[in-house]
Structures are given as structure tokens and as C-alpha cells.
């Protein structure tokens, strides 16, 4: 069974598909009924993911009064949505919901972060951001390593484009959180040149 054999599937079929032994080491999302393979993370992608988790976890360590968790690459689907199963690169879940041990969590995290891989189309990533916001996220980030910018989409329909010299904050979501955008990206020099 390959991706192309399947047209529109529901979450039940998706579960069966990802449970196949040949798919064990791969990452898939279900996007409006379509199975889409997620690119394997590059080193650059993994570093940025790591930095986001680090600064967010640091924040929650300091602000122990805020109940929340930082989650990397976990499966989420909106409650009662049989056509979607998503893997935000980094997610913040506020509150003390029980932690899902098997399958997808039945909600969308409050903050969803997507980091662009070399082959990711921005259009597709922005649609993901919209999807998160439409289904309960308060904020969604599209992180663009090549430009060293972050697009911040909020539930009130606002957009901000932060460049390396800006500071990323979430005044409503994470009061007091603040990190320089530049610090979320690996230093420019040691990045391997693609050309």
C-alpha cells in the first residue's frame, strides 16, 4: 500500500496506514482527508526545533505558575474531525489536559510552530497555520530559516512578520516571554552552502 493507492481517507484508515511496518519510520499527516508525508528533518530544522523547545521550556520552568507543556512532533486532530491528523513541529498546550499516550490528541494546541524545510511550500505552510487557528490555536508560527524570519499568525486575524532583529513575544498567551528572533536560528556562518 503506497500513498498513491489511497485517495481520500478518514482517520481510521489513516491509523491503519501508518501502522503498516513499511511506514514505521516515516512521518505522515492527514490533511483534509489526504495522506501527506512529512519531510524528514534536516540538521538545520532540528536545531531550530530544539531552540524553540528550549526557550519555551525555560520560560515554563521560570513561570511554574503557568500550567503548560511543550511538545515536539506529536499528533493532534481537532475533536470529531475524521479528515485531519497533524504534526506541528513544536506545540505548546496550556492547562493540565491528560497527556495522550497512544494515537492523536483530540484537540489543537494553543501555540503551533511549523519550521520550513527546504522543500516546504510557504503556501502549504500558511494553510497549516490557518487550519490550526480555525481549530482552536491562539497563535501559529511559520518559521523561515532561509530568510531568518518568522510569520506570526494570531487568532484575531493579525499577521506579523518578524525579522532577525525583532523580538518574539506572546503577550496574551505567555506573558513575559521574550526571545530575540536571531537566537532561534543557527548562526549564519556555519550553515552549509547549498550551491
Amino acid at each position, binding site marked *: 500500500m503506497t500513498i498513491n493507492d489511497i485517495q481520500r481517507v478518514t482517520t481510521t484508515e489513516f491509523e491503519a496506514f501508518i501502522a503498516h511496518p513499511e511506514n514505521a519510520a516515516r512521518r505522515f499527516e492527514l490533511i483534509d482527508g489526504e495522506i501527506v508525508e512529512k519531510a524528514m528533518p534536516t540538521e538545520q530544522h532540528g536545531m531550530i526545533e530544539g531552540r524553540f523547545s528550549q526557550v519555551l521550556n525555560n520560560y515554563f520552568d521560570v513561570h511554574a505558575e503557568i500550567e503548560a507543556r511543550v511538545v515536539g512532533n506529536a499528533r493532534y486532530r481537532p475533536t470529531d474531525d475524521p479528515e485531519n491528523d497533524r504534526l506541528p513541529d513544536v506545540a505548546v498546550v496550556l492547562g493540565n489536559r491528560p497527556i495522550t499516550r497512544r494515537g492523536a490528541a483530540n484537540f489543537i494546541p494553543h501555540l503551533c510552530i511549523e519550521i520550513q524545510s527546504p522543500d516546504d511550500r*510557504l*503556501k502549504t505552510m500558511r494553510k497549516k497555520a*490557518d487550519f490550526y487557528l*480555525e481549530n482552536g490555536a491562539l497563535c501559529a508560527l511559520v518559521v523561515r530559516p532561509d530568510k531568518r524570519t518568522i*510569520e506570526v499568525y494570531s487568532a484575531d*486575524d493579525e*499577521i*506579523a*512578520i518578524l525579522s532577525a532583529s525583532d523580538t518574539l513575544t506572546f503577550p496574551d498567551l505567555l506573558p513575559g516571554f521574550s526571545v530575540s528572533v536571531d537566537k532561534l536560528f543557527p548562526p549564519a556562518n556555519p550553515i552549509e552552502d547549498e550551491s
Partner: protein
Amino acid sequence: MTQTLQRVTTPEFEAFIALEQNADRRFELIDGEIVEKPMPSQEHAWIESEISFVLKLWLQGNGSVAADVYVESRHRPTDDTKNDRIPDVALVMGRRKITRRGAANFIPEMCIEIQSPDDRLTTMRKKAAFYLEYGAQYALIVRPIKRMIEVYSADDELALLTAADMLTFPDLLPGFSVAVDKLFPPADRIEDES
């Protein structure tokens, strides 16, 4: 009336807008759904008129660039039976034939949408994405309240221009440049809503 109609195709849409009671109203067909376009406020019309004016003025002075400016004209992608759209302002490159009746069968190179008080940004951004998907090079969302413009381009770039920025289209209209602030009425002339 819009609520009762479910999904229709362009022939049904044509019949619907031809109804006598719809004569003075403006409708779009959005993925098979008939959606009424809000009647333009004075502020909306001011901006629409200013944008078409600066574009026309520039084109007059730059005869080597062939293009036409349209206000509220109907466009649908070739062979698309589920869409019929009315960008507030459109720039059509070249010297295409001008449609006399019905919708033009293409999407303009530049489509500009001006936000009305009740327009949701998410809906407007979906319109911008639609224009780009069907051939537009640029799609603009003009936001009077914030005095800013979101510029979406076919290469997937997004620029957020504020009043202090300049609006340019280097590949489409080389040399064209206008201050974003000038495209909005002076702030002190706008009636206070509160």
C-alpha cells in the same frame, strides 16, 4: 436569498444575478457559493478611486508598459464553472480585448481587495490566494483601519506595508512607486465611528 441557494455553477449564477430584484446588488460566486459583496462605503470608494487613479496616471506617463486598470469588473478563471469574482481594482497587463457582457475569462495580473468594515481578513486572504493560484502575479489586501497593505505575490512572498512604506511592483510596473499613506484618505477627514 443568498442563504437559500446552495452550490451553483456559472449558468445558474448568471440567471440569479439577472433577476430583477438583484439588479442593484453585487454578487460573487465563490467555489460554487453565491456571496453578496457589501455595498462600498465612502472610505472604500475613496481608496478604490485613488488606487486606480495612481495606476492610470503612472500608465499614462509610461507608455511602454501596456496595461489596463479596472474597477469592480467580473473575472473568472478559464473553464472554472464555480467562480466569478469581482476584485475591487484590477490591473490587466497587455492590450486584451475588453469584455462587453458577462465575466472576463481570466484572472488579472494584479487584484486588489479593499477591506470593508464587515470583511473578515481570513476570507480576504483566501481571495488573495485564489487570485494567485489562477494567474495573478500580485494580490493586495488593503486595510483602511490599520492603514496598511498586505502584498501577496506569486512567488509566495508576503510583505506587510505600513503607512510609512512605499508600494512598488518592480517586475510588473518597473519604476512605479507610491507612498502607502497616500492611498488612504487623510485620517482627520474620516468620520469617527464611535
